[in-house]
């Protein structure tokens, strides 16, 4: 009975309170009427993301692109076609993120554990990445997007490594928009790599043992290529609810959004859903407010 009463009261307040707020805006001057509210997207501007606020957009979004194989199986296609669809979806997501003001996007393209997959699939993935890095170089230059590739790059084919270096060199001057591709990446490897980097610097006399703290450690992680190494929002598709050794250190206070949709089906609508969910949350970064 009490529960029902609470429900009715909350429903009533939801209906009445917004209507009590003055709906008529004060008469503005001509100049004010021409100004657009910078905080909110104007309805009608490139298919409005209803309810999103520009000032609450995440600075860095990370994606775990899971579900390509399942998508291909459901569609009766080859696994390679699933990965191809996944790659296209990434480019679309990238374009959308940049349009919405999200300037840094990280994508978990290939994990260290993925080497355990069938050799044919691994070769297909390597070829696909090579193809996209080569064919999209001009696109990234035109869009002034910096591309960085992070991971343990010692095992990847020479031809792909060459393409990686080429695209990184061609886009390193761009500062505003950034795509970080994690290839042969492992969160634990990232942490170990930082440890080794600190050892090297210590041997060279660049740092002392007592200088080693969290900030210095973070600067040695592979995500040092970006100003915002910790993602504000992580999206993982296909319904799996784990981070699978991705950005272990960096994800401490990241909003996690697990979508049941398979990656090639993660379209604009799903991204906006993730962003609305993100903007509704209250993050405290472990502190008391």
């Amino acid at each position: 009975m009490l529960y029902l009463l609470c429900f009715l009261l909350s429903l009533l307040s939801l209906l009445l309170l917004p209507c009590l707020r003055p709906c008529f805006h004060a008469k503005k001057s001509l100049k004010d009427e021409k100004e657009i509210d910078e905080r909110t997207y104007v309805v009608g501007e490139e298919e409005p993301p209803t309810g999103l606020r520009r000032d609450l957009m995440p600075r860095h979004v990370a994606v775990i692109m899971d579900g390509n194989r399942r998508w291909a199986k459901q569609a009766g296609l080859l696994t390679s076609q699933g990965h191809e669809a996944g790659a296209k979806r990434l480019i679309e997501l990238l374009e959308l993120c940049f349009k919405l003001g999200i300037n840094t996007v990280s994508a978990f393209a290939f994990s260290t554990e993925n080497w355990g997959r069938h050799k044919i699939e691994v070769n297909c993935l390597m070829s696909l990445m090579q193809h996209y890095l080569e064919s999209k170089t001009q696109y990234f230059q035109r869009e002034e997007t910096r591309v960085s590739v992070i991971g343990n790059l010692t095992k990847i084919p020479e031809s792909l490594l060459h393409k990686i270096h080429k695209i990184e060199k061609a886009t390193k001057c761009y500062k505003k928009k950034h795509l970080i591709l994690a290839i042969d990446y492992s969160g634990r490897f990232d942490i170990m790599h930082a440890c080794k980097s600190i050892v090297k610097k210590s041997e060279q006399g660049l740092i002392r043992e007592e200088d080693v703290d969290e900030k210095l450690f973070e600067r040695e992680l592979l995500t040092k290529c970006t100003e915002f190494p910790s993602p504000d929002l992580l999206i993982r598709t296909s319904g799996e609810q784990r981070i699978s050794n991705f950005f272990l250190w960096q994800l401490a206070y990241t909003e996690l959004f697990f979508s049941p949709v398979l990656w090639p089906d993660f379209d604009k609508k799903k991204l906006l859903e993730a962003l609305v969910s993100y903007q509704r949350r209250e993050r405290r970064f472990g502190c008391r407010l």
Partner: protein
Amino acid sequence: MDLYDPMMHVSSWIRQVGNLGLDLLWRFIHIVVSLWYIVFGIFEAIESYAISLGFDERYNSIDIKKLRCLAVAVDIADARDVANVIELLQWLTTIGVKQVGLYDSQGLLKKSKDLVLATVPGSFLLEENGKNDFSPDEKRIAIEFISSSDNKEAVMKAANILLQRYLKSSPPENDKGENFFTESHLSEALRVVGDNGHVPDLLLVYGPIRSHLGFPAWRLRYTEIVHMGSLKYMRYGSLLKAIHKFTGVRQNYGT
């Protein structure tokens, strides 16, 4: 010029009406979405009560052996209310969970360790080596208390230990430390600084936001993460549902 002022008034009036219309539309959408969430919440509550009362047979027998180690991350606001945490632990003991890592970023639960261990029947502190000397049939639960000092700070200390060991070993000039800095070395160094290193199979997050709240990163590689909402509104049925769902998960581990 004479026509200009009336025209401006008209367009200003039109703009105001337009703004009003958009405002009302936005509020209408807001109400619809809020109603949807209310209905969804009610449905979840009903389902949870049904599970608690045993109406859904699927949840009456859970293969709890698959859940070797459970972790619970609690938001600091919720961690202050230890009574809820104790009740949660009692539920977990009833379900048959044998090992729990209890985490909050500020270490509030660590400070209430004695109270928790004294109040939760069958509870004891998890030993460093992880050996639990009790039979699976006993309703006992081993608890580990974790805070953010066991996360990045612990990794820093472990990294320092490895660094000191490496430098003391007087490595040759070309040695890049490949054999010295491996995952197992860091895991061992973490144990030295007091991190038991128990890797949870499932992490339940209680709090307003969906993040793991700074839970020790080294342990989270393949951990399933489930956001449970605020601890104030925790339900036995929701807990059972989350654990049951976990037992059905199949991981590929990237392969």
